[in-house]
């Protein structure tokens, strides 16, 4: 049987999801419910309607359906279209989401297919998955973009819906396997931007062998429109972006732990 997967968006000329010019494939469905989620249409595993406009008055056009099933060959052909730009820029494909590890067979088949086609792969993941899946799938990716959110397990549970023990263990395991890793840290005001969290995280990440860099991604209220179009509650409504000064201060802790830091993806 052909492996199929649910995808909600394919973004070409993605510039912030790994090296070079990339195509980012957003898997639909995620076991986490992060308060600050930028892609709320990627949370549910099934297709869902999303209004085209925010207003929602009577003459508004019918909402579009977000989410579509793709087979591996059809998706691989779509990824292949921009190969020239990957070659030109040292880019490739990034599997993001949602949570790509939540559709492990699909991800595994895609990674195999891209390897055969000599296309560079990156996986952008929360790391929340059984370790055997992480081990088998992620050993095939050229680069891991691994999200860390909070070091405190209880607070992680509060703000994402799941604990972080599995996530941290998986990261240590991957590091041991020698996978190239970039840590991505969303900086969310009032949730994970206090010094003690950051210090603990810097300590943990600083102890890993294969982390190439940490990207600090400042929270931005950009997704508010999407929440409204999906008729979902936005728990971050009204929260503003951290200032450049705030971010740089936090970044200094990581730099002090000997880590390369980048602001923005």
């Amino acid at each position: 049987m052909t492996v199929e997967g649910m995808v909600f968006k394919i973004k070409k000329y993605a510039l912030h999801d790994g090296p070079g010019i990339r195509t980012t494939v957003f898997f639909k469905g995620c076991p986490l419910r992060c308060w600050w989620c930028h892609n709320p249409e990627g949370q549910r595993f099934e297709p869902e309607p999303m209004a085209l406009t925010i207003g929602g008055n009577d003459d508004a056009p019918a909402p579009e359906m977000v989410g579509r099933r793709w087979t591996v060959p059809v998706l691989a052909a779509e990824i292949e279209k921009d190969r020239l730009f990957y070659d030109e820029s040292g880019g490739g494909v990034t599997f993001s989401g949602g949570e790509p590890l939540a559709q492990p067979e699909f991800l595994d088949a895609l990674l195999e297919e891209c390897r055969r086609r000599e296309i560079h792969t990156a996986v952008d993941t929360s790391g929340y998955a059984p370790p055997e899946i992480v081990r088998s799938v992620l050993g095939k990716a050229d680069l891991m973009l691994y999200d860390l959110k909070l070091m405190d397990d209880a607070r992680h549970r509060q703000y994402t819906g799941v604990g972080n023990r599995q996530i941290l263990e998986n990261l240590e395991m991957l590091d041991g396997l020698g996978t190239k890793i970039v840590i991505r840290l969303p900086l969310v005001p009032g949730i994970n931007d206090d010094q003690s969290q950051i210090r603990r995280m810097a300590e943990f990440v600083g102890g890993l062998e294969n982390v190439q860099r940490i990207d600090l991604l400042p929270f931005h209220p950009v997704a508010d429109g999407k929440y409204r179009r999906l008729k979902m509650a936005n728990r971050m409504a009204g929260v503003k972006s951290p200032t450049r000064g705030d971010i740089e201060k936090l970044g200094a802790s990581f730099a002090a732990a000997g880590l390369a830091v980048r602001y923005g993806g």
Partner: protein
Amino acid sequence: MTPRIQRLRQRSLDAKPKISVERALLLTDFYQGTAARNASVPVQRALAFKHILENKAIWIGEDELIVGERGPAPKETPTYPEICLHSLQDLEILDSRPKIPYAVDDETRRIYAEKIIPFWQGRTIRERIFAHMTDEWIAAYEAGIFTEFQEQRSPGHTAGGDKIFRLGFADLRLQIAEEIHELDFFNDPDALGRLEQLRAMDIAAEALINWAARHAERLEAMAAGETDARRREELERMAGICRRVPARAPETFHEALQAYWFVHVGVITELNPWDAFNPGRLDQHLFPFYRREIEAGTLTEERAKELLSAFWIKFNNHPAPPKTGVTGQESNTYTDFALINLGGVDRNGGDAVNDLTYLILDVIEEMRLLQPSSMVQVSKKNPDRFIHRALRIVRTGFGQPSVFNTDAIVQELVGQGKDIGDAREGGASGCVEAGAFGREAYILTGYFNLAKLVELALNDGRDPRTGRQLGPATGPAEDFTDFDLFFDAWRRQLAHFIDIKIRGNNVIEQINARHMPVPFLSLLIDDCIAKGRDYNAGGARYNTSYIQGVGLGSTTDALVAVKHHVFDRGTVTMAELKRALEADFAGFEDLRRRLLDDTPKYGNDDEAADAVLREVFEAYHAAVNGRPNARGGVHRVNLLPTTCHVYFGSVIGALPDGRKAGQPLSEGISPVQGADRNGPTAVVRSAAKIDHLRTGGTLLNQKFLPQVLADETGIRKLGQLVRGYFRMDGHHIQFNVVDADTLREAQRHPENYRDLIVRVAGYSDYFVDLTPELQHEIIRRTAHGEF
């Protein structure tokens, strides 16, 4: 920028375009006089040119380093009544129209009424052209099927080669004398014709030398009265330069710039060629002078930059000659399309980027002037530093420089049968037109409305706007049983109107060859002197005529919509679709929504649409390419619109792609506004599916916000996007960095801006997807020039 350049630049920006009657008056005096009564047409034209240069006012502005103005003062713009005579009503429109006005004073109106109009009425090229056009040509022209460049402007469309920088006009006169000496009256039945052409060229060459000498005299007089010792010394030096060039070949950097500038003003004084004129490969021409003087210590980088800046400002002092009517609509701008080329390859194919290339890019960034236009030629052999430098200027958001693919241009020209060395020394002029600089007359003859033909194919050749049978009866659309039959109807409309256009072109070329020779321009373009033949009569080494296709994206999307909905899916009948189009979709909103949103569109790397794109392109190419012109060359295609997509859209009703009546067409080879939703790689992949190498130029416009290019990574990745497009043989791409006004427009009409990507914070998103609050924030940021 030095204080002097700041002053010169500000004065150029402050000057308002104004009609000058000086040239029209001198020309009329000349033709009313007896001096030329028995002379041949070319000699008459040369003597008229001489008369104008001998008698026109000399303008030398305060602080100037490069001298020579077409009018009596900066931005004072002459008219060319021998080509197109403005009526008093035209003058009133020029004076009062809100966009691109030219002030007209009472004295000009009076002289026009009393002298210019009575003399030229009935003698203009424009009247001759219209008198010789067939009824069906006139009908098609009036219906907006095509436009005609030569009805208000003379043929031009060329750029200078290195000859201007290698030879003086005294050298050219010697060459002319030699050619006259070798005329073969025993065997050449056209020897007398050649003699007259060569004599005319000689008169024109002498006229320019004398005009430079008039500047030298004035400069000497100014120096004598100058109290500031430094300026006095400078004026004396400038006088010396005007004594030497353009009579002799330039020897210094300053002389090279001044020599070119006299030539430039000569071309645009002789007539009003479309496009103005253009030094072509400026960094190549100037580099030998620059290097020699830098090494000798007689020139510093700062001084070179100051001279270049002064040179730039001279271009900006010269708005395009005024256009009115349809011609005003197809190209409504002060820009006269002098396009400076930088980079590329040399005659032997080597990387041509040099130190001066970068210095000129600095000047472009600092000057930020409407004119001249500028472009970079990017070859696979050029370094990334070059393209990055250019893109950092693009980021500042004034639409320059545009980016061209040298390797494609060379192949296009070689494919047309040109020598590879000539091709490598060529480039793009005007908007995007490929040419062998200094050796080719590549005449743009008019825009061609590809999308209007969809409307005719849907209506059995009848124009629904007027009810008139305009094209051949290709059958009622309701009777077509498959898409191929419908496409064939479109193709037959195309063949019919291309025939009409080409017949007209060939008549017009003969009119210009007989009645409007250009002996001065002929001096500059090889091999007019060697052949003893005028530029307008096939004197150039290469002679090409172009018809510029407009609305490739709209045409494709309209045809695809019919294919997809009527024939492939059967979701609507042809009859119902036609009713919807006639109603401009009133009462058919749901159908329109499906046509817009549930239809393959060109620009998304979607083969379902792009396959039709290729068919449209191939049909257009087959209809035009290789058809003989009247100058010994052939017709070819290019795809560019200037502002004609707006005019052409205004004469078309609703189209099957969901476009409403009167809306602009897509421009160049860009997708329909808002139809591309998969980002820029998908756009350039789609655009590269036509064979650019068989065109003489294509224009692709991409919108970007400055924020997307905020950091060096953004610049690098945009460079890689360009390199990728060029690896696929794309001809040209330009980046319209969007301003705040456009964003406000996008808020009001999101349906037209679905392709607009903005950088939000660490990542990019579609502008129309953002909340109003965030949109406002980005508009504020953009308005304040923040990245």
